[in-house]
């Protein structure tokens, strides 16, 4: 899909919100923002985010589909390798490590997660709704960015996503959190990506929503910051770090 070295068409790069994240960040991040303005980098970034979410959901299962997890992990490796080569990976990790709340990165995943709520309510009872809405602000933390922000180097980041098998026994707190949620990964994933029984084959919805939702998240980033400690705590539970 993304052949190396192919020139990509610029979509709505004019009002791309990605550069919004460089508010108050060191010079490095604006360089990162500049690199990200190309549509190719954007697609690569959203592919990376998507892959990391998929991997994270794999890790929640005691016995994930190993073939699938390995293939996704290899895709992440490949993206990381390419980003390391063109310097984006390092710039991004530095920039994100410097920033406490990587607002721009949160956008992509928040968009993804926002779609979860109605779907989950549909298939679950009221308790599920409560559980999931409590969970949804956590979900953005699953994105690559928060990982990058948490760790010092790219290698460490990646290590977190390596396949562990057999998976550690589920944390009791986590189990409680998910007790009402359908444990089958596939469902969770289809809900997350907004692809239910009839998969969408349209253009890159993720990217479209990324650009349209950008400004809103910028303004909401302050509230996001206040919740961060709490989120970190929940993330620790989920990731088991």
């Amino acid at each position, binding site marked *: 899909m*993304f052949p190396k070295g192919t020139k990509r068409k610029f979509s709505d790069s004019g009002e791309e919100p990605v550069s919004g994240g460089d508010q108050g960040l060191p010079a490095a991040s604006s360089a990162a923002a500049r690199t990200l303005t190309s549509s190719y980098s954007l697609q690569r970034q959203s*592919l990376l985010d998507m892959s990391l979410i998929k991997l994270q959901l794999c890790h929640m299962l005691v016995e994930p589909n190993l*073939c699938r997890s390995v293939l996704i992990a290899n895709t992440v490796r490949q993206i990381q390798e390419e980003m390391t080569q063109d310097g984006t990976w390092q710039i991004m990790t530095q920039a994100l490590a410097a920033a406490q709340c990587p607002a721009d990165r949160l956008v992509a995943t928040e968009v993804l997660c926002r779609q979860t709520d109605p779907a989950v309510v549909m298939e679950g009872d009221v308790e599920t709704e409560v559980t999931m809405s409590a969970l949804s602000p956590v979900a953005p933390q699953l994105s690559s960015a928060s990982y990058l922000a948490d760790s010092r180097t790219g290698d460490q980041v990646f290590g977190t996503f390596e396949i562990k098998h057999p998976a550690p026994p589920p944390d009791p707190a986590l189990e409680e959190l998910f007790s009402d949620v359908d444990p089958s990964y596939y469902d969770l*994933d289809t809900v997350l990506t907004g692809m239910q029984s009839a998969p*969408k084959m349209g253009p890159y919805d993720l990217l479209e929503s990324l650009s349209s939702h950008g400004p809103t998240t910028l303004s909401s980033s302050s509230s996001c910051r206040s919740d961060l400690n709490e989120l970190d705590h929940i993330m620790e539970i989920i990731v088991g770090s």
Partner: protein
Amino acid sequence: MEEESDTRKINNSFLRDHNYATEADIISTVEFNSSGELLATGDKGGRVVVFQREQESKSQPQRRGEYNVYSTFQSHEPEFDYLKSLEIEEKINKIKWLPQQNAAYFLLSTNDKTVKLWKISERDKRPEGYNLKDEDGRIRNPSTITSLRVPVLQPMDLMVEATARRVFSNAHTYHINSISVNSDLQTFISTDDLRVNLWNLEITDRSFNIVDIKPSNMEELTEVITSAEFHPQHCHTFAYSSSKGSIRLCDMRQAALCDKHCKYFEEPEDPSTRSFFSEIISSISDVKFSHNGRYLMTRDYLTVKVWDLHMENKPLETYQVHDYLRGKLCSLYENDCIFDKFECVWNGSDSVIMTGSYNNFFRMFDRNTKRDVTLEASRENSKPRAILKPRKVCVGGKRRKDEISVDSLDFSKKILHTTWHPHENIIAVAATNNLYIFQDKVN
């Protein structure tokens, strides 16, 4: 293979309405036995349904060889692994028939963890007139028996019994993806994501690990085994495929542990079509030896390839199954379809190959004429005993009548499992919870 086929409905009660299908009804494997007289399906609910071909009758020639339900039994039950706190699904991953050696039929069925050997036998007589036992089967006090009577076999209604003869368990940490019976008729292999185990059909408490690709540090894991099969004639040779698109041929005579392959089949990557999805779409979902043992067929996400066992560096033939999806890979990754495991089969003479696609389409490729056809297994678009019309997917440009555009394909209707009668042009196609049997036009 004629493009025109005859639709044959097998059993109304089995073809339940799609709308009422439950998850448990979804067919997860389908397999003809070595004579083609029997056809077995396994489903997500752990059931095995065996169909038997009707004997030809002169009064109704059009009913030649329909398949009717012969036996239905619960092969696997859901289980719980208390050590891992993990539910083990009852879903039947694969069924393999053993060559018939006596009046009874034997098959192996497997779920994620346990392989079972089932005996399917008929009984139409029962012995009567025992006087050593009472009616409840208890042995009588010998002192009360004054004469010896020979029991007589009395005819009774035909009964088909399925009995579990062996249970091969506790040998797989990961999910079993395939099983294969050896041509020596004494052993079989069961394969999971990282290991291949060799069993004797008579011994359930011991298996030999013949391939183990598990790295000591699981964080270094980048490749898994996706399928394995014995050579149809050489009982020492087997092949296994990997998620990186390669096939390894192993010779069990070389060493007890076949970690070193004797042949390695891999096609170099085409740099012009390279993308982030290259590895995922090259992952092999199924590997099958040809009946003559000369070729290997592999299915990856977009193609089916035929390899000559004497040529390791590239496939002999490559067939595009649904190349129009190449531009949709990102969406197919997003909705997880890209991880679907399509299987592939040979016809009896190894001249035609068949594999599934989306939208209830399946594809056939004639290796000699290089002709290919797309057919559809659907109750809406084909009536019983009607001739199947070839379907076409429109790729770019203007859509012609009878063509379907790529965007309107239904990706929830996928044909993953098919099987071909060993001697005749009869195929069975599993489409979600429906089983379709097609055969060459009957005149």
